[in-house]
């Protein structure tokens, strides 16, 4: 034991990196952006952590989500505007929660030293209903990372760790502490938690609202939120670097120092008002805390005297608030406690009536991809489109659906952690062009293992068959140039095979071959959406003698197949795709291709 370890002199970013290693982080990634860059740069050199630069912040977050799912604590870093790029996964990650802890570091840049705007990312914590920690010096930056991971796992939520330029690029003494014990986690399939289709997302959303109330109680109890006694009739609420400015400007004041600054601990605020009659909020940028305190019906000084733009410093804070101390204190008011928001009760389904969820159409070629993928024992990480319906019973063919284009980044992180082709990504053609190309570039660049299945049905099917760059069909239905998925992948340098999705055997063979080949590969399952194809692919017939109603074909979830009295029956919805013929082990189903004329 090293009890008198020398203090290190670390920047906030270095401290976050060291704190992450101490918190048992095994996976870290991000996209460089001032003032966040040095976190990943520092982590790269630390033992036991795999660190990556990603192609952008959205892909970085999705990759970290994959790593968290695979069971390791994961850290993602970006500058404030980077969270705009990552907002899509961030907002829905709040609903799914995490497996192992996941912390997003947003380094804001008040004063725009090196940025195009100075947006206040504290709003993102409120927007996504996730907890936020705001360290005020390097030691806290180091310490809070472990706290953030512990909150993430306890409350099943991503946590926002917010820094600003002066914290990230300021330096201070840091005493290292003993590593925290991290519980072992492995991936557990949980479709209702990770597949955010409406019926599951509505339930998760109610859990998020409940979680926020529990987090508020935690913020009330947390030692990170401290009421510091003063000797004058003046109290200041502050978090992050602004606390340091205010503390230096008013050493005799009372302070409510917020480390876990969202959700705001209302009772602690009220307690400050019991001790003093004059209260100010010192915060950079938006009146984030001030507005919430105003909402309690309490008189507070803030953005009326402190600039709402740029950086603060102790002199600015002192000059702004000093006249306030000379004034007569405002009349004391009792705080109006905020009401707990009501959470809707889910509508009761009419009793005893079978529900009718949307399903993959009869003859839909996505079904044959799922049938082939099922044989390969990979964790199928999904995306957004018609094929997301494959996650519902009876197929249960996808383990996740986070946001557009998330599947490939998640697969990359998942496989990086497990060091093998454990997960596959399933993504539609339109979604691939929307945001699947950048994570493919990323997975290639970071040399992730994996299998990407592009379900290319030549349209944006779910929303009503709109065109996309892969088809070249434009909004006015005119034909523009089309981008080929195969050539695009090869241009990146990724192995790619295109197969006819109606050719079940070829599809199965292509997937099998890809699974057995090390490295990253793409299989494009190509066939136009069955709704755009009027002609039947053939005729399927049932041999009632041979069918024993084993249910293998029924497990495909095809609406054209039903169990009859002695054998399965086919309804006239059948398109003759023949997939059921492929899965039948008794030869009870026969397929005659259209125009084939064969026996």
């Amino acid at each position, binding site marked *: 034991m090293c009890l008198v370890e020398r203090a290190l002199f670390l920047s906030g970013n270095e401290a976050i990196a060291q704190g992450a290693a101490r918190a048992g982080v095994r996976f870290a990634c991000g996209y460089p952006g001032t003032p966040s860059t040095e976190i990943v740069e520092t982590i790269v050199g630390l033992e036991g952590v795999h660190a990556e630069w990603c192609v952008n912040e959205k892909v970085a977050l999705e990759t970290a989500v994959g790593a968290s799912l695979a069971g390791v604590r994961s850290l993602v870093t970006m500058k404030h505007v980077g969270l705009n790029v990552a907002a899509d996964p961030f907002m829905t990650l709040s609903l799914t929660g995490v497996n192992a802890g996941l912390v997003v570091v947003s380094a804001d840049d008040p004063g725009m030293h090196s940025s195009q705007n100075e947006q206040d990312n504290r709003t993102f914590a409120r927007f996504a209903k996730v907890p936020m920690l705001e360290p005020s010096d390097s030691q806290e930056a180091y310490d809070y990372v472990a706290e953030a991971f512990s909150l993430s796992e306890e409350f099943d939520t991503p946590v926002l760790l917010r820094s600003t330029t002066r914290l990230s690029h300021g330096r201070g003494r840091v005493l290292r502490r003993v590593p925290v014990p991290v519980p072992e986690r492995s991936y557990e399939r949980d479709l209702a938690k990770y597949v955010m289709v409406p019926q599951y997302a509505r339930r998760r959303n109610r859990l998020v609202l409940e979680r926020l109330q529990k987090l508020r109680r935690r913020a009330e109890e947390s030692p990170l939120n401290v009421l510091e006694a003063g000797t004058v009739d003046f109290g200041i609420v502050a978090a992050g670097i602004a606390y340091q400015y205010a503390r230096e400007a008013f050493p005799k004041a009372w302070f409510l120092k917020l480390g876990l600054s969202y959700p705001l601990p209302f009772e602690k605020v009220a307690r400050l008002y019991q001790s003093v009659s004059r209260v100010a909020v010192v915060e950079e940028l938006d009146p984030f805390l001030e507005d919430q305190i105003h909402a309690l019906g309490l008189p507070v000084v803030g953005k009326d005297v402190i600039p709402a733009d740029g950086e603060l410093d102790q002199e600015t804070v002192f000059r702004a608030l000093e006249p306030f101390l000379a004034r007569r204190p405002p009349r004391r008011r009792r705080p109006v406690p905020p009401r707990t928001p009501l959470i809707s009760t889910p509508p009761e389904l009419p009793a005893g009536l079978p529900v*009718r969820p949307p*399903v993959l159409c009869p003859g839909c070629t996505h079904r044959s991809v799922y049938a082939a993928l099922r044989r390969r024992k990979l964790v199928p990480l999904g995306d957004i489109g018609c094929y997301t319906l494959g996650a519902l019973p009876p197929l249960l063919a996808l383990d996740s659906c986070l946001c557009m284009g998330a599947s490939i980044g998640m697969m990359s992180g998942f496989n990086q952690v497990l060091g093998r082709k454990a997960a596959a990504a399933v993504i539609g053609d339109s979604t691939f062009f929307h945001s699947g190309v950048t994570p493919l570039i990323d997975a290639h660049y970071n040399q992730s293992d994996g299998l990407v299945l592009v379900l290319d049905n030549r349209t944006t099917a779910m929303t*009503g068959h709109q065109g996309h760059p892969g088809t070249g069909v434009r909004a006015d239905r005119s034909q523009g140039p089309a981008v080929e998925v195969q050539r695009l992948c090869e241009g990146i340098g990724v192995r790619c095979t295109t197969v006819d999705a109606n050719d079940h055997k070829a599809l199965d063979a292509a997937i099998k071959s890809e699974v057995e080949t090390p490295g990253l590969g793409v299989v494009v399952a190509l066939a136009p959406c069955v709704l755009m194809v009027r002609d039947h692919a053939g005729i399927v017939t049932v041999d009632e003698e041979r069918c024993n109603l084993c249910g293998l074909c029924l497990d495909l979830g095809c609406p054209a197949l039903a*169990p009859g009295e002695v054998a399965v029956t086919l309804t006239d919805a059948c398109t003759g795709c023949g997939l059921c013929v492929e899965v039948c082990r008794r030869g009870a189903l026969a397929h005659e291709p259209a125009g084939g004329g064969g026996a």
Partner: protein
Amino acid sequence: MNGTTTVSLVGVGGQGILLGAAVLAEAAMAEGLDVKASEVKGMAQRGGSVLSTVRFGRHVYSPLARHADLVFATELLEGLRGLDLLAPRGTLVSATTRILPGSVLRGEEAYPEELAAAAAARGVRLILLDAEELAREAGNLRAVNVVLLGAASLVLPFSPDAWERGLAAAVPAKILEVNRRAFALGRDVGARQEVPR
């Protein structure tokens, strides 16, 4: 509420609920009424349960309502589900068409058959018709929605002229004639198909 009539159209994705709602809305506008409508698209389609709501009156505020004066169902199970959407003394116009949901297809659940009894138990006026057969007679199996509109027209306060203008405005010219026949058949047969309470 406030003199506004609410019609909810329920069925299975792909049955032409949206077109039915469009004809109804156009007919209401032809009567000089204010109309608002609300539909759910996207994930709700693809063979799942769908619901569209059309509201009309002198002035309509909300485009949706918890309860409807008339529920119009292109499928029997959806009609049964639609009973919960009906206001007291409401009317249900339902097709006898059965489209089996996945759980029934897989034999996990039985297809419920008790629509007439359930409607009677709630004091609901029920018009039940074999809309598929009538659509076939009219010349297009997909005209089930308009057959039902014909039957529903019996309980809605629109003139024949308003319905004609509604059809002409909402139905593509190519299939307008078939749909005119489907509407007329639905209106004729619907008048004789009221299930006694």
